[in-house]
């Protein structure tokens, strides 16, 4: 061992360890696993997307042998499919606005006010996450008959609303909490009334979080299929519920075209709020504190 090494200074050329059998295997296994994950996560989506443009796809070929756009024309020409697209864009805004109207005041209260039973109410909202969804929808559908909500617009709104309550309360509550109280107090000192403080200071600063919650709510309603299917049929068939019948009754290519159409709003809206979700806010919402 040289003097340099004894002194704890490793010559630069020796820093990178020589590849051993072990390090090569570790790296190879790592690469294989990453490729496997890539195929597992993205493969099905690409495979389906290709189908939307395929005319003839004989097995076992990796790509279609003939390409076409005719499935796009047939989907756009189909009245019932067009109708379901329209319905989806009607339900999603209604559910989002209703959810915001119901939950945003509560979000503010949970964040800013200390009142008896606060914890109990908070946990009771989380009950919506504790029930397996389809069992809950079946229970709801049972009493919906009595209140004439089966097969109605309102019934579908209620079914979709339930799934949005937790994040419509939780995310805006976190947003309200992140507004520094000192700012509000400063505005108060300058003579602003409580309402003015809320609309000029608190609300604008919390707006991004509220926006995220509204986007997620819109997407939830837009993508919700099983509850809508149970309560809405036969009168209200939205895009995702249409997929159930589409898969069985139409050629695969039409299903693929419709899938792409249904995925586009999701991808666009989700990309808008991606940073917020990745930041761990979603994860925080599941810790009981």
């Amino acid at each position, binding site marked *: 061992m040289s003097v340099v090494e004894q002194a704890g200074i490793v010559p630069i050329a020796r820093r990178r360890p020589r590849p051993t059998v072990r390090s090569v295997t570790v790296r190879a296994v790592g690469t294989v696993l990453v490729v496997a994950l890539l195929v597992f*996560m993205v493969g099905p989506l690409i495979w389906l997307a290709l189908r939307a443009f395929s005319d003839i796809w004989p097995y076992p070929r990796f790509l279609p042998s003939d390409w076409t756009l005719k499935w796009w024309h047939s989907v756009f020409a189909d009245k019932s499919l067009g109708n379901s697209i329209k319905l989806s864009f009607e339900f999603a805004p209604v559910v989002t606005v209703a959810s915001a109207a119901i939950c945003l005041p509560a979000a503010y209260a949970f964040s800013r006010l200390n009142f008896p039973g606060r914890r109990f109410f908070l946990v009771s909202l989380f009950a919506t996450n504790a*029930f397996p969804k389809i069992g*809950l929808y079946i*229970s709801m559908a049972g009493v919906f008959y009595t209140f004439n909500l089966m097969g109605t617009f309102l019934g579908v709104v209620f079914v979709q609303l339930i799934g949005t309550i937790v994040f419509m309360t939780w995310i805006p509550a976190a947003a309200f909490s992140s507004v520094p109280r000192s700012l509000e107090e400063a505005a108060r000192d300058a003579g602003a009334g409580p309402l003015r403080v809320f609309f000029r200071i608190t609300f604008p600063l919390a707006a991004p979080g509220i926006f995220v919650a509204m986007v997620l709510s819109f997407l939830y309603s837009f993508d919700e299929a099983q509850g809508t299917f149970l309560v809405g049929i036969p009168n209200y068939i939205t895009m995702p519920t249409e997929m159930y019948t589409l898969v069985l009754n139409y050629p695969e290519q039409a299903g693929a075209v419709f*899938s792409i159409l249904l995925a586009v709003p999701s991808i666009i809206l989700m990309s808008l709020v991606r940073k917020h*979700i990745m930041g*761990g806010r979603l994860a925080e919402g599941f810790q009981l504190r």
Partner: protein
Amino acid sequence: MVLPPVAVVAVFIGFPVGAAIAYTLGKTGGPNSTVALIAQRQHVAKHGVTLGAYREVLGNSHVRGDLWATVWVTLLTIGVVVALSWAIGLYVRLSDTWIARAVSALSVIPLFIPVVIASYSILTFYAAQGFLKTLAYHTGWHSFPTLGYTMWAVVIGEVWVNVPFGVLMMSSGLNAVPNALIEAARDSGASLPQTIRAVLFPMNVIPTVIVATFTGIYVLGSFTVPYLTGPSAPNLMGVSMSQFFQSFNQPQQAEVMAMIVFVLAAGLGTIYVWANMRAAKRASQTT
């Protein structure tokens, strides 16, 4: 101010679930009167309650098959999702290469895709003429099994849908472990597996339990994934309860199945609450 959402939860969850419990025990009055009018094969209790509907449903061998399928698919999905989330979370936490970033980006893709489309694409990918069969054919494995319309496709679908939540949860938990702690363990001679076992794992019990619980509850309550990718029978309880409700016109039996699924979910929920309470106790003891 907090009353509106709490009222919505009480009216649309508390009340229907209460009514459903009464209905499954043979109470056909009040909120259940309309559904009881159109239902077939009902068990009605004239006085007190009857367990007839439960006896009939649990005595049905098809339902028992569904129940068994539900239990093993749920447990297997929980196992795979927890393992995958830990593996991806650890990889992203301990390595800062572009591959690690690519892996974490890949694992959240399902968030962007509606579940209906995910299920449909998974069905075609693993179908008789799907990618996996094609790949196996070209590598000379002609007898490769078709996974589409089997319970394996259901497990694949459930895992695919639940991976983002697991990864986000585990990454946020693992990121909360300070670098100094990991380095201290490594400096005192702990190998990577030892560090994971002695430092990272004990500090991430709660996120792990959360991933396991909510993945389990999701699978128990799922309809779209098993309906589109699974076999006609036996399939998950979610599919059969919808069939009993809509196709067979036996809502009482469907609600009995809902209750069975609720009980299974409550079992998972108990573990979650217990883990949270234990962690809170520990925290109060140490501080």
